[in-house]
């Protein structure tokens, strides 16, 4: 345990990047790793839990990783459900609350109010990260680490921008709340930005654009770049690489694997010009279907400390 100097809130690790690059699996792996080491971890996913449910069997977790199963929490924040909570808090009479929630006017108003759902999502995320027990004087925090399995890059940026938009185009309490959220989520002291990308041109381009936007608009730098699904050719030494020969008579599988690996290696060599952060490589594995040992192995490859 490493919190001799308790922070005012949980460290937020943000796994962000293009859709389909493995953010969710890596979030689970990172969460499992820290939870196994005795930290209290909450993973906030934008995927509905049943989808993750196929992945993590709680039963298996408590048998295989008893320490982790006590410390690991996974929540799915559905923006629509968050708004239901907001209404139910504001209107204590259930019948009236449900009339409002079921009225098409209210539903439409919510759908067309730009950034409203994102705003409530951020507010809830901040709440989760705050250490309520620490504030009330107790010694243990609610969570040491919050892992945000962020939505795909465009929506992730739009979510961060929502708080600022509220601050800009509104006045009054919502604007103040927006300013507060904006401060919280553009503070490098609270957040570690961990973009995830495979070594593919399109995903990398999107990652660079996202990193540029984060730095330009929110003064947030990247703390580490996670390269997912990398080929063994990328990490091979030059001497090993020299032993690889392919020509037209080579087996198609070998030709594909080597060419693919060399293309990845080329891309990898160019990354430092765009993102100076340290790189973490996770090898490409067969499809992860819920195998906890494999998840543990991915966590070991990731090896990202709680405080970067």
């Amino acid at each position, binding site marked *: 345990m490493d919190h001799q100097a308790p922070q005012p809130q949980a460290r937020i690790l943000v796994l962000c990047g*293009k*859709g*389909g*690059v493995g953010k969710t699996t890596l979030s689970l792996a990172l969460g499992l790793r820290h939870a196994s080491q005795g930290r209290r971890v909450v993973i906030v996913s934008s995927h509905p839990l049943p989808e993750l449910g196929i992945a993590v069997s709680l039963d298996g977790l408590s048998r295989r990783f008893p320490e982790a199963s006590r410390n690991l929490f996974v929540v799915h924040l559905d923006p629509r459900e968050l708004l239901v909570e907001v*209404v139910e808090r504001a*209107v204590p009479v259930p019948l009236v609350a449900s*009339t*409002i929630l079921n*009225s*098409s*006017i*209210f539903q*439409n*108003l919510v*759908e*067309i*109010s*730009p*950034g*409203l759902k*994102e705003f409530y999502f951020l507010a809830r995320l901040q709440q989760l990260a705050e250490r309520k027990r620490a504030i009330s004087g107790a010694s243990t925090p609610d969570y040491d680490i919050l892992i945000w399995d962020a939505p*795909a890059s465009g929506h992730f940026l*739009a979510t961060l*921008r*929502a708080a600022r*938009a*509220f601050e800009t*185009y*509104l006045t*009054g309490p*919502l*604007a103040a709340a927006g300013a507060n959220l904006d401060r919280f989520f553009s503070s490098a002291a609270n957040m570690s930005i961990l973009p995830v990308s495979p070594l*593919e*041109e*399109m*995903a990398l*381009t999107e990652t660079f654009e996202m990193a540029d936007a984060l730095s330009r608009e929110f003064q947030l730098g990247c703390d580490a770049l996670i390269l997912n699904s990398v*080929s*063994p050719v990328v990490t*091979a030494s030059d001497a*090993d*690489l020299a*032993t*690889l020969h392919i020509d037209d008579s080579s*087996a*198609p*599988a*070998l*030709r*594909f*694997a*080597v*060419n*693919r*690996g060399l*293309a990845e290696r080329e891309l990898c060599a160019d990354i430092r010009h765009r993102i100076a952060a340290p790189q973490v490589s996770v090898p*490409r*594995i*067969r*499809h992860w279907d819920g195998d906890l040992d494999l998840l543990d192995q991915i966590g070991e490859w990731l090896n990202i400390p709680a405080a970067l």
Partner: protein
Amino acid sequence: MKIIVYLGTGGVGKTSVAAASALALARTGVRSMVITTDPSLRLRTALGLADGITEQQVPLPDSEDAGELWAALLDVRATLDEAVRLYARAGMAQRILDHPIYATIASSLVGMQELMAVERIDQLRLRGFDRIIVDTAPSRHAFEILDKPALFADLSSSRKVKLVGRTYKLVSALGLQSIGRSAIDIYAKAEEILGVNLVRQVLDFYSIFYPIAEGYSRRAERTVAMLRDPAVTEFRVVTTPQKAMRDAAFFTSALGERNFPIGAICVNRAWLHAAPEPLPGGMAGDVLGWYSAVSESHRAAVWSLKEAYGTQVRDIQVFSELERDVDGVAALDVLARQIHLPF
């Protein structure tokens, strides 16, 4: 005219499959157009859409081919701006374009991309394209393209928003019964819960935006009717081996609820070569071992997909991944030759 709508989550190569389909169709001698939202730089270059160009005719790889291939980039903000200028009353367009809500609507309104795609399909139909291939946003919810126009119309063109939106307190005081007391209560409550400012800004915006939404909804209804007609439109799901089972389950049920058949599931980016036996030693063995572990799981995934969905979905197609990202129309052609199309 026929339409193919490709659905799929991020990172499955949907844009390449859509562009390759348009190429394959063009080769049959018709005018074919692919509408895409977010192509990679390579694909943009291949389609001639780099450097701010949003629509382009693409030369076919074989000069003997008779058809036409076109590509268009869907720029949500630009399409919306155009609609505002086209349909707003004089003097109103600028008020809309300058409204603080407008600045965020194009980027943060869910489904805006799909709505604008519908708008674009209508324009293309009028321009005489025979085949339109739509590459939807990388979202599990892109098929809401079929639900959205109704929501938009409901909201923006209804008399309630028009009247109540601008001066609902005044209207309430005058007692205009046509609006209905309950609607006003809901607005008052919404202000309480969501904040006075937000609700007023939003209502103020829609009170000037509604004529555009109205014009839009009328045209959208026509297009949505075409999208709902299986004789005109085919929906296809693009996925990868890793995501195949999950995506198939999700899309068959989500589209099934709306009574839309899925024309085909396209499993893209599959590694299908068999590794030589026995594996050689050294680095080549490492690389092949790595390849064949992934390849075996891909083949297993395709097999499970066919077992589970083979009877329900008439057409399951598997495309092998290219060694390098698609580069140029010639490379797109490699993919185009693997695709089977319904017409």
